[in-house]
């Protein structure tokens, strides 16, 4: 493996990555769970499904948060996570608008 220059290495940016992973990771988890809640098996009103949906939030959220540190800079973390949020919320709103 070629040696990486200082620019190519991951920058720590602890605070900005942690905060964006926590906030944007949570909103991303909600977007994914919202799609599952309405369009996953059983639809929105299946009994006890609300509990299952609530359980889904945490693993998605924490996985996103844990992997946020892989972004090279804090700014990239924000940009990518915001885009992912935009994509999933658009899908959700589009599906809601269709039905």
């Amino acid at each position: 493996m070629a040696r990486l220059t200082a620019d190519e290495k991951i920058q720590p940016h602890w605070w900005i990555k942690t905060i964006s992973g926590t906030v944007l990771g949570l909103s991303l988890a909600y977007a994914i769970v919202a799609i599952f809640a309405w369009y996953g098996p059983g639809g929105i009103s299946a009994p006890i499904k609300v509990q299952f949906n609530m359980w889904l939030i945490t693993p998605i959220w924490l996985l996103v948060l844990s992997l946020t540190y892989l972004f090279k800079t804090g700014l990239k973390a924000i940009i990518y996570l915001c885009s992912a949020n935009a994509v999933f919320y658009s899908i959700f709103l589009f599906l809601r608008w269709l039905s």
Partner: protein
Amino acid sequence: MKIRGDILRTYQTIHTWTGIVTGLVLFIGFYAGSLSMFEEEISQWATPSSHQLAQIPAEKFDELILKASSNFDKAQQDFTVNFTDHLSPLIWSEGGGGRGLQLEHVIRHATLSEQGELITQAHLTNELGDLIDTLHRTAGIAGKIGHEDIGVIVLGIAAMLYFIALVSGIIFLLPTLVKSFFALRTNKGANRFWLDSHNLVGIISLPFHFIIAITVVVFAFHDAFYGGLSLAYGDEPLFEQGEKSKIEHTVDQLPPIANYLKKVDELTEGYTVESMAFSGLSSSRPSVGITIINHQAMMRNSTGDFIYMNPYNFEVSFSSVKMNEEDVYTPLVASFFSLHFGGYAGDLGRWLYFIMGLLGAFLFYSGNLLWLEKRRQKQAVQTKPNRFMACLTVGVCLGSILAVVSTLLASKWFYLIGVQVNNHYLACYYVTFFAALIYTFTRGAAKSAIHILYAMGIACLLIPLTTLLTIAIPSIGLWEFKPFPSFIIEFVALVFSAVFYYGALKTKHRAYHGESNSIWALPVIKVSENISDKALSSA
């Protein structure tokens, strides 16, 4: 497997800091969680057997409920029916109950004599098992914000960091995983041994740790999660509102107990009814919570599954077992709880969870030790932050265990001298814990680790000796002699007594014969020349 060096270093830093920040509270959460697997057994062990009244045949329960509710006003609204042999057939609250810790809760036990006369007696409940469970959920951090325990919130945040620590631990272990997974190098110094065992325990119990991390976050923040989820639901209600019943009933209209048992048989397969808790019988929302057990099934809790229904028309309002074929989400949700509480695989599963919990505690303790080792300097007196962290690790971890063991030991003595047991449990825990912590900071980590381990060993040894005493002097009359299974707690205490004693010896050896430039080293004062020479040559 090759991973870029900067990624490894990033995640190593994350692992180190999330670990050191959360290690102490998680240590308490884990070992107390191990004990809480046997929460009910511990409470039963601590409760004098004279408190429980004799069980009655199944067909006599209706007569008992009728007689109790006509003689005692308090037994008309809420009461619990037990079918287990060693518990009173009927109990109800006399006051001091409610949510949270119930230190002053008095319940009345009732049974029928052979002639059919009502016999009752009131006792303070024993909350030892619940207190251990509370310690498990809060790490002993007291106080509330609103109706949430501060300790639960702290552990919830700690669990998030712990999840990150798990992910980062895997990432930076991956390159060396195959090479050193089962390597337990004892010949490369204590540091390497601790690291190898830390990695080994972490990897083999990884699924368990992920489950615990996720469930703890959910347990701590579910209210907030539902709040956010309601936005996604829009106008759809999150939960169906149970309808108020228009007709109000009273206890004398209650169907016979046999009907409930029949109903449970229809609804489930292979389950037996353990107890039934009736509540609000003459209110507009009457309910009965039926605890059912099937050791062959994946139960929601290690203590069983439950069905809630209206006691007058048998309408099921909530159940932790599947009620019909379309219901896919009930068993899924129940399995999350079950995986946290160890409600599958019966007693074997509970013992496995007991061991996994202790291994988890070991993971955090060894993690802290590794942190200290890594920052070690080649000088006799280590830096101030290191000494502080060493004291905190020893004081909190060992101090908390000593406090719990002392409380278990004191339990029978509290009954013998006749004090309010629950308040004294709490006092005993905190006094011992803080005494140990202060002792550690005044005497230093190296010396106090040895002393506290000795104290733990002695306290554990005294638990079975106390039981022997209550058997040897039957005139005390609080506990009757019971056959073997009830001595399991004494046996486990004896095993741990030996473990702690061995730990003390090892710690002592490290202090006097281990590396001298260490936080654990103590100056050798009275060791004769040739012993220390021998130690040097063997080291």
